[in-house]
């Protein structure tokens, strides 16, 4: 293996400012009450909130300047993602800004980029990607749906499952096999033959839908970039999504750690703050270690996304380490909070559900470790 790229972990002043304004905004506008209200809805987002985020520049951060973006890097976006994870931000940010936007940046024709990216940057578009058809979907090999050619048109038939905010997105970027390989298609939500059905989720703050394509007919302009070239694009988007989820997980795990520590300091039993008991104190020390390790892998991955080779190592590394850290932090927080943490009323369960469901998305920890082993040649 080549030398490991060194990254600079410290935030720049600008990034630090972004972190502060993002956290402040989320504390003001995305309180647990707001999260719970949106959780009860079927669409799970709030248009005004979505627009406000875009106005803060979140959506445009990693979009190239020539397409209406701010031209920053994933490192800046990572700051927002971590804070979103901490606040359990509800809405199709991951599916629009991390996934669809990057698919277009990486795979789209220049005209498509010009047409679509500014809308994302300005917060006008909500998008998603419809990739997998079954529960174990995690790599391009799992994509089976075919697109048949009919003259200049493409006909799509099949069902895409677990599409993040698939019933809310205005445009769906979907993947299908064409004669020349794997291709991506841009499908407006109102296309005839396309039906989106909301499915209730374990983590009700992140909605999903199953999309049924029944003879969906698309013109040649629907093809994202060139036919048969989508494989590497999807691969990369999946890795970026994994890194994005890792950052969210870090933010959520940090919330769990802080919540548990505060409980340990203020809850008294047997005449002592319970954090003075080694059973609690040592569990929290272990949680601290594991959250700090998670941060290191997520921050590292966020800073090397442009190094394609290293990303093959860094993305599954981060996703596996952060998933385990978050699951453990959330589960241990319930334990430390005792009965309280098991109530619907307390917010911890929202984090537990986020932890569990993000750990499963785009392949669970053992899948991630398989990817990592491949990248390491083990």
């Amino acid at each position, binding site marked *: 293996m080549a030398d490991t790229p060194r990254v600079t972990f410290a935030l720049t002043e600008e990034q630090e400012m972004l972190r502060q304004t993002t956290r402040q905004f989320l504390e003001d506008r995305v309180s647990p009450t707001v999260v719970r209200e949106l959780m009860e809805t079927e669409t799970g987002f709030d248009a005004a909130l979505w627009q406000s985020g875009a106005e803060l520049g979140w959506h445009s951060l990693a979009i190239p300047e020539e397409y209406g973006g701010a031209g920053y890097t994933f490192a800046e976006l990572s700051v927002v993602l971590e804070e979103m994870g901490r606040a359990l931000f509800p809405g199709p940010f991951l599916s629009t800004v991390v996934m669809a936007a990057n698919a277009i940046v990486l795979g789209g024709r220049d005209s498509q980029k010009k047409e679509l990216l500014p809308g994302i940057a300005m917060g006008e578009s909500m998008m998603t990607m419809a990739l997998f058809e079954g529960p174990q979907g995690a790599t391009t090999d799992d994509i089976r749906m075919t697109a048949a050619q009919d003259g200049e048109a493409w006909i799509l038939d099949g069902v895409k499952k677990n599409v993040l905010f698939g019933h809310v997105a205005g445009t769906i970027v979907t993947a299908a096999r064409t004669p020349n390989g794997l291709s991506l298609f841009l499908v407006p939500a109102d296309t005839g033959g396309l039906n989106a059905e909301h499915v209730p989720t*374990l983590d009700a703050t992140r909605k999903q839908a199953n999309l049924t394509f029944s003879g969906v007919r698309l013109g040649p302009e629907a093809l994202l970039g060139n036919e048969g070239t989508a494989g590497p694009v999807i691969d990369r988007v999946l890795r970026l999504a994994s890194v994005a989820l890792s950052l969210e997980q870090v933010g959520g795990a940090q919330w769990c750690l802080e919540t548990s520590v505060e409980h340990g300091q203020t809850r008294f039993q047997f005449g002592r703050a319970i954090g003075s008991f080694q059973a609690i104190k040592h569990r929290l020390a272990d949680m601290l270690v594991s959250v700090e390790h998670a941060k290191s892998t997520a921050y590292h991955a966020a800073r090397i996304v442009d190094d394609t080779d290293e990303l093959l190592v860094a993305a599954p590394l981060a996703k596996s380490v952060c998933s385990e850290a978050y699951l453990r932090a959330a589960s241990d927080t319930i334990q430390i909070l005792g009965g309280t943490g098991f109530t619907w009323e307390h917010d911890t369960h929202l984090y537990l559900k986020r932890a569990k469901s993000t750990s499963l*998305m785009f392949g669970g920890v053992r899948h991630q470790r398989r990817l990592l082993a491949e990248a390491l040649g083990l």
Partner: protein
Amino acid sequence: MTDTIAAEKAEALVTGKIDELLSGYDPSMDPQEFWGRQYDLGLAWVQYPEGFGGLGVSPKYQSIVQRRIEAAGAPTWNRQINLLGIGMGAGVISAHGTAEQMRKWLRPMFTTEDMWCQLFSEPGAGSDLANLSAKAVRDGDEWIVNGQKVWTTLAHIAKWGMLPVRTDPDVPKHKGITYFIVDMEADGVDVRPLYQITGEAEFNEVFFDDVRIPDEYRLDDVGAGWRVSMTTLMNERVAIGSRSLPRGSGSIKDAIRAWREYEHDDPALRDELTRLWAEWEALRLTVERANQMRKAGIPGPEGSTGKLAWADLNKAITAFSVELMGWDGTLYPGGYELHRPTEFEDSGSPQRNFLRARANSIEGGTSEIMRNILGERVLGLPGEPRVDKDLPWKEVPRG
């Protein structure tokens, strides 16, 4: 020799009563009526005195009763229906109650006419059960109760509640507690559902606002409530830790079902599934061994480890089942619906079971408390220095 004769006599007595019970059984009979007859014949708890649902013989004969009734197809599920009454309350009342109290409460409990609940936990006490704040003040022949209890199963359908409260805040916490049986239909009792992370409310919050309890509903002496509570809890923990199950049943069954349903064949996942299977089987064999040793009268440490081991393992297995489901595990079919079940819901989707299992290491004694108990009572390790032992309750720091 005398022992053998006495044993033969006892067995004949029990067998005769069973014959009498079953000879009068008819499949169309109302179960409550059957259980009433069972009680009246002394076959509810054979070790209790005659007239109180028993025959005054060794408890080992109860298993004959159970087996015969099951074999006859007659109803045996009153224990499941009224678990907190029959499983915990009966033992406490028989150990600490007067003859009058036993007469009043045992029969309708056994027949399930009167459902029971247990009012121990309080929001401010948690694992420190003895730190309870709900209080009772004496007023002539009555006591006036105020305070809040929490995590009360089936409180909304219970007629009677087991209620330890503080009657003297000026003595150390373990000494100022008195144990009452409270009429859950009395004025001032307010039962509210407590929704948990699955959306269900298996539990309730119970508020007491100047609730009056007659002194004759007091169990054992004023100030003896901690001892009475301990009897109750021991019964509960042994019950949780000694459920004997067939191989491959319980949560591992869900995991294996998911393994097959999702057609997995990744050896790393298989290794983890097999590891969990092995741990679960080791637990099962340990429970089986403990039950055998208990019956043989030579109980050892294996009888105390079940609750702790089960909690951690059930959490791990239910989490793994969801992992096997991949994207399907990110769904929650039907969505979360806040509702109030009227019986114990033993299982549901793997996702629901995963969530529900998070409480296993909290309910019925947290795993931390269980480890203290194993360390101190089974292994004989010394306790921690206590800052609250000798202080008057009202002076102990809390929060």
